[in-house]
C-alpha cells in the first residue's frame, strides 16, 4: 500500500484503482465499458489510458478486489468479453480508498481555498 508518499505515479494509480472499483459498483463490465464509463461520466475530462487500464485491472484482480469471467456480451452472443465484477473485499477497499481520497482532497482544498467553514 502506498503510504503517505506523494509520488505522482502512485497517486494516479491509486486514483485509477478507485475509479475502476467505483465503476464496477453498477455491475459487471469489461475493460472497454469501464474506460467508456469513466470517460463519459467525467465528460471526457479523464481519459483512461489503455496502457494503464489493463495492468490496473489485472493488479486489482490479483489483489482479489475484483473477479473476472469470460462471458459473451448480452446483445450479440457472438463475442466474448472478460467481465470484471466487484468482490466483497473490493467493496471494502472502495470505501477505504474513497475516504482516503476524501481526506486528501479536503486537505488540498483546505490549503488552496482556505475558508472558515472548512475547519476540522
Amino acid at each position, binding site marked *: 500500500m502506498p503510504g503517505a508518499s506523494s509520488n505522482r505515479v502512485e497517486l494516479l494509480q491509486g486514483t485509477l484503482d478507485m475509479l475502476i472499483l467505483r465503476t464496477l459498483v453498477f455491475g459487471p463490465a*469489461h475493460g472497454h465499458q469501464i474506460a467508456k464509463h469513466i470517460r463519459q461520466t467525467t465528460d471526457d475530462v479523464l481519459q483512461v489510458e489503455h496502457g494503464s487500464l*489493463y495492468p490496473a485491472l489485472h493488479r486489482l484482480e*490479483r489483489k482479489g478486489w475484483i473477479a473476472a469471467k469470460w462471458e459473451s456480451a448480452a446483445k450479440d452472443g457472438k463475442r466474448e468479453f472478460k467481465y470484471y465484477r466487484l468482490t466483497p473485499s473490493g467493496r471494502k477497499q472502495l470505501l477505504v480508498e474513497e475516504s482516503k481520497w476524501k481526506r486528501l482532497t479536503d486537505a488540498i482544498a483546505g490549503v488552496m481555498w482556505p475558508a472558515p467553514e472548512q475547519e476540522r
Partner: protein
Amino acid sequence: MRWSPRRTRERDLERELRSHLELAAAEHEENGLSPEEAALAARRAFGNTTRIMEQAREMWGWNAADILLQDLRRALRNLRKSPGFAATAILTLALGIGASTAVFTLVDSVVLKPLAYRNSGELVAIWEHMRFLSFDPVGPNPRHADLWKKETTSFSGLALVQEALAGLSLGSEHPRLVGSVTSSANLLDVLQVTPVLGRGFLPEDDVKGRDNVAILTWSLWQTVFHADPHVIGMTIRLADVPRVVVGVLPASFRFPDANALRPFSRKQKGGIAIEPSVFVPAALDPNTFGWDGDFGNWFALARLKPGTDPKQAQAQLALVERRIAREVPEGQRDLYTSVQPLRDAVIGDSGTALWMLMAAVMGLMLIACLNLANAQLGRAVSRQREAAVSIALGASRRRLIWNSLTENLLLAAVGGSVGVGLAAAGLRLFRGYSPLDLPRLSEVHLNLTVLLFSVALTFGSMLLFGVLPALKLMRTDPQVSLQQSNSRTFGTKRTGRLRACLVGLQVLGCTALLLITGLFSNSLLYLLHRDKGFDTTNVSLAEVRLPNKTWSAAPDRTAFADSVLRGLRAAPGVQSAALVSAMPLEGETWIEGVARIDKPNLQSLINLRWVSPGYFETLRERLVAGRVLEERDRDLNSAVVSEGLAKALWENENPIGSQIATEDRKFTVVGIVADSRSASMKSAPPRMVYLHYKDRPPFAVVFMVRSARPAGEVLAGMRQTIWKSAPDLAITRVKTMNAQLNESLAGERFQTMVLTAFGIAALLLAMLGIYGVLSYSMVTRMREIGLRIALGATRRRIYALAAGELGIPVCAGLAAGLLAGILAARIIRNLLYGTQVFNSSVMLIVTALFLAAAGMAAFLPARRAASLDPMETLRSE
C-alpha cells in the same frame, strides 16, 4: 507445465485486448467507417498493445515459481561453470545419502519396526539365568516353564518353541530341507494368528500319539503345494514322520528363523537358518523332564495380559523360581528368570551393531557435508564481488540467499535421488549375501519412513553445507567489497575462523571414527589370533542329519557312524577322521549337570559332546593328562573332561579314574584335554565332557577329516563316502573347518571392514578439508607472506606460520575426537572382544596416523607459501 501459469495469463490478456479492439472497431464501423478504417482507428485510439503487455508483465512481476525457475537455471549455469565441484558434490552426496539410506533401512526394518504380530508389544521371551553360564540368559527347562504357566497370572499364554531343519517330502520324491517349528499347541494363539485355510492347533494335538498334524506357511503352500486348496487332509512326511496338514497360515505371517530365535541369547554365530515353514505340535510332557538340566533346548515365548508390565511378570516369576530352586541340586540354586520384549530378543546384538553402523555412516555424511560447506564457503567468498554488484544494483538480500541456496538444493536433490537409487541397489545385494547374520532380513525393504528419512537427510545436508555460505553472502557490504581492489583480500578474519571451525569438526568426526575402527580391528585381531585350543588347517567337515523316524534305533546309527568312519579313514590322504555330535563354533549346546560320584555336592553344568576316537587328534586338541578316547572305550563308559571342569570338580586331586554322573549314568574319567574354544571363539571356553558316540549315537552327526592335502580337496570324497553308507541321506553341510571359523566371525569381519572403509573415507575427506582451507588461506595471505620473506623470514618460519593456521583446530578436533570415540565405544563395548575401550596403543596409532595425514595435507600449500618469490609477489600487487 512449468510455463503454464505465465502462458495462460499472457494469452488471457492478449485475448482481452483483442476483444477490446474488435469492439472499438465495431463501434467505429457503426459510425460509418469502412472495416479497415475502423480497425485502424480503434488501434490508433488504443495505443501500443505490446507496451500494454509489457506494462502488465511488469506489474505481474516475478512470482515464486518463476523465481525458483530462474534461480535453478542460474544455479545450473553456475555449476556448469565448475563441473569438477559439481561432480564431486553430487558424488559425495549420492554416496553419503545412499549409504545412510541403506543403513537406515536396515535399522528401520530390523530394529525400529514392531514385529508383525497383533499387539506385538505384549510378546515377550522368558529366560533362565544360572551361575554356570555366568548368568547369561538361556531357554528354560520345560518343567520350570510348565510351573510358570500354572503359577502366574501375568501371561495370557506361554509357548515353548524349538526350531530345526527337517526333510519334507510328499511321498515319492527326495525330501527337501525346510525349517520346522516344534512348539506347544498354543503358539499360534499366543501370536494371535489364525490360519487362512483349515484350523490351528487344538489342545488335543499336543498329546503324544495324536500329534501327527502340521500347519504350513503360505509360501510353502504356494511353492510346494502350488496353492492347492485340497492340501488340508493331505499327508506329508516331515523328518520321516507322516503328518496330516490341518492348516495354512496367512501370507503376511513370518516366524523368526532359528538364528533369530536362539534359546541361547549369548552372541554366537548360528548354523544355517532356513525360514521356518512347517509348524508341528511338540506334545511335551513336562513331567518327563528333570528339574535340572535341559536348559537351552527350548525358547519360551509368552504373551503378557494387556496392560501387564514385564516387571510385574518378572516379579511373579521370581516367586515361582524360588520354589523351583529348592528342587534343583544344591550347587545350582543360583537361578533366576528374566522377561524380555520379544522384539529385543529377536534383534539381539544386531541392534547395537546396526546403530553403530548408522552412527558411523552419519558421521561420515557429516564430514562430507562439512567439506562441501567449506568448498561452498570458498566459492561464496570468491563470488562476493558478484554479490556486491548485485546488491548495489538493487537485488534483495533475501533473493541472493535464496539464489545461493537453490544451487545447493539442486546438488542435494540430484545427489539424494541418485543416493536412494544406490541404496535400493545396495540393499538388493545385501539381502542376497548378508555377512551380518541379521534377523528379520526378509522384512527389509525401502518404505515410506525410509524415503522420508532420505528426504530429510537431503534437505538437512543441503542446509548444512548451504546456509553458512549463504549467510556469508548476506553479510556482504557492497561498499566494502567493491572498494577492495583485489579478490584475494576478500577472505575476512571471520570467514577464516569459520572455516577453521569446520575443519576442527571434521577432524573430530574423523578421529572418532578412526578410533572406533581401530578398536574393532583390534578386537577382530584378538579373535583371530587368540588361542583357539584347536587347529583348523586341513580339516574338513560334513554334517548329516539322520531323520528320527528311520534312524530311531541306536544300533543303526552306531553302525552308520562306524561304516562312514571306516570309509573316511581308508580314503587316500586322510590322516585322521572322527565325528562329533555338534557342529563346532556354533555355540554351547547340550548343557547338562555333572556331579562327582564320591562327592555328589561337587557339581557343575557342562556341554556334553559325543565323539569318536580320533576327535582330539583331528582337531589337535592338547591332552593334559590320562588318555584320549579309544576304540576300547566303546562299552567302557569312559569320559574325557576339559581342564576347566577338572579344576572345578577336583582342584588339586587327580580326576583320572574318578567317577562322574551325568544324564543319570555313571562314567569314568580317563583323560583331561586342554580347554578349547570349539563352541565359540567369542566366549570363554565352556566346561566339557566328551563321551564315546556309542553311548548315545547322535542324530546330527558332524564328520571331520584331517588330510595331508588342503581341506578343500577332500570335501567331494567325504560326500561320496557318506553316500556309500546311506545313499538317500541329505547332507546338510560340507565345508572346511577354516570356512566354518571364518563364518563364525563373519559379522565381526564385516563390521571391521565397513568401519575401515568409512575410516579411510573420513581420513581422505578430512585431508581434503585441511588442504582446501590451508591453500585458500595461504593464497589470501600471499602478499603478507611475500613481505615477511622479503623482510627475512626463513622458510622454517613460513612453515610454522602455515602450521599455526590450522594447528589449533586440528589439535582440538583430535583431542575431542578421541574423547568422542571413547564415549561412543563405551556404548558398543559388548561388540568388542579382548579390547579395552580406553586403549592407549590404538589411540596412539590413530593420533599418529591422523597427524601424518594432516601433515601431508598441509605440506603442499605450506611449501607453496614458503617458496614464494617475494619480489614477484610484491610487484604483482
